[in-house]
């Protein structure tokens, strides 16, 4: 018997380039950063790497990283 199934495959950007949704972009000031990794841990998208680089192609600009940063090292800058 042949069974028809709808199968999706794992893809980065399954819903498109979600970075285009962004109104504010997070910018990390490495001088103020104390390497607590709050931003990495709390980012809902996983767009902050453990090396603390932001993937702007998919970051939705929610601002959780800036809100949870204890040393205010992340600034939310308006997109042009």
């Amino acid at each position, binding site marked *: 018997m042949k069974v028809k199934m*709808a199968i999706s495959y794992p*893809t*980065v*950007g399954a819903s*498109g380039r979600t970075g285009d949704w962004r109104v504010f972009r997070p910018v990390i000031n490495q001088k103020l950063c104390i390497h*607590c990794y709050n931003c990495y841990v709390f980012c809902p*998208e996983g767009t902050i790497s453990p090396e603390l680089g932001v993937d702007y192609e998919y970051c939705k600009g929610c601002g959780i990283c800036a809100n949870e940063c204890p040393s205010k090292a992340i600034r939310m800058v308006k997109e042009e």
Partner: protein
Amino acid sequence: MVLVFVMSADKFKDRHGFWTNTIAREEYILKGNSSCPGCTAMIALRHIFKAAGPDTFVLVGACCAVVCEGVYPNTCMALPTLDTAFACTAAMASGVRAAVTDRGINVIAIAGDGGTVDIGIQALSGAIERNTDFLYVCYDNEAYGNTGMQRSGSTPFGASTTTTPFGKKEDKKDIAAIVGAHNIPYMATACPSYPMDLERKVKRALSIEGPKFLHVLTPCPPGWRISADKGVEVGRLAVRSCSFFLYEMENRELFMSKPSIDAMKNPIPLRDYLSVQGRFSRMSEEDMKLAQEKVNANIAYYREVCGI
């Protein structure tokens, strides 16, 4: 300067009691999914899958999480995943477990609060009664988020939703207590504002054979009417005001988790938690008092149960 660095880092470690090298680097939810910006349910799922690891089979009931997976024929889920109908997530988990008998493979069922406390409760109760070896995760955004924020059995007293525009008159169902009454081997409540606590509970749950249940409170920016960056902070306020308790239950013995023990000793007023959310903006003074009394009664109850 060096001293400042060390002090700040230590202070942070104390505040949250964790250090990042205990978190797996792998991401099982790929970037570019369709969750709303600032969705804390995605933080919760991200850490649940990190804790569970690659040998995991996931079932996702109809809820926000299934929409977040993306557009066919693509998905953000890097784990084998089966999307199920609304009412039967736990029943399908039983079926999957019957096929996947290897204890080394985790079966995790994910559903929203509506799919757990309302429409999926019979499937969940049945799967627990059948002793299915799986972990059921209910992420609780306190409404039917996916279809536009209608009230669910898990919506708290006083919250306005699209179907209760003047605030819900009934109380939130205590799903954790309902599941606990099944004499389940392991059950816990968690919140992504305390990610290490969440990961520890997932690991503990998966190490135990039999049915396990995890109730995760996940603030939802559009539904709770908070700004997208405040989800984690509001989750913390829920725990600090004792509106939500973090605990574990193993074979009917209840262990309160540290953030809640601290909160119970000195809870912040419930108003501090409710007033930051737009959905409670129409709550009257009397209702606010009533809600605070309900919280106080809960604190007294848990004090007695855990002897704090």
